[in-house]
């Protein structure tokens, strides 16, 4: 008995439009999004309408809602440690800009403490980070 040959499978044919779309999505996420370094504390800054661009490669100081401090990637236990770290970092590069990212719910007294420490370490200016409001 002669059986009809099964038709040849061609699965690739209808896959191409999907690949196109997936590539487009991939390029969109690569270009439009930004990858951020992992933050040692969870900090949710306040929104603001105004504000300047961020500077490149700053010294990062974080203040979370409970008032815990971190510098760059490391959590510090108290202001003593923060001051020592700031001093060491600013001695190495005195012109390095400083960026402070404080949680919206953090006590402003804590922010002022950090500003005093910055001043003592030799930084005259700092940037207070906010999220852009639309």
């Amino acid at each position: 008995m002669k059986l009809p040959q099964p038709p040849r499978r061609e699965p690739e044919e209808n896959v191409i439009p999907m690949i196109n779309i997936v590539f487009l999505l991939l390029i969109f996420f690569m270009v439009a999004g930004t990858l951020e370094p992992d933050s040692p504390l969870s900090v949710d800054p306040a929104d603001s309408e105004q504000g300047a661009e961020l500077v490149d490669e700053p010294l990062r100081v974080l203040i979370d809602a409970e008032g815990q401090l971190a510098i760059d990637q490391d959590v510090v236990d108290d202001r003593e440690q923060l001051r020592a770290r700031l001093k060491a970092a600013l001695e190495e590069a005195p012109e390095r800009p400083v960026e402070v990212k404080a949680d919206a719910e953090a006590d402003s007294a804590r922010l002022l403490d950090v500003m005093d420490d910055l001043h003592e370490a030799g930084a005259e200016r700092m940037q207070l980070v906010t999220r852009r409001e639309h």
Partner: protein
Amino acid sequence: MRIEEAPRRRRLVSLTPLIDVVFILLIFFMLASTFVEWQAFGVDAPAEGAAEQERDQEPLRLYVTVEGYRMDDESVAEEALRGRLEEAYAADAERRLLVIAAEGAPVRAVIRALDGAAAAGLEDVAVLREEESG
């Protein structure tokens, strides 16, 4: 003469591994990228009292307390803050603004004050602690 039928074109490389890799990349970028736009306010970290001496004009003082904002001994509603700062700018565009944060006031309130000042056009802004202002 017998002409051989042209062989059916087949894809030399299978597309499936490519799709797998592209999907994995897509998922990575979707999860890892953020679309938050950051910005910042430049803030002075002044030495205690040092910044105020050489100025002949009395700076404008905006108190940020736990209850709200206070200016010239009267409380200012949050919605009226922008208007008050714009008035101050219209009267004297060069006037220095001191944002004086009380203990317990959240950073959010300080940032709102800085945002209002930036929107009004005041540029000479410092953030201070309550007792420093005298």
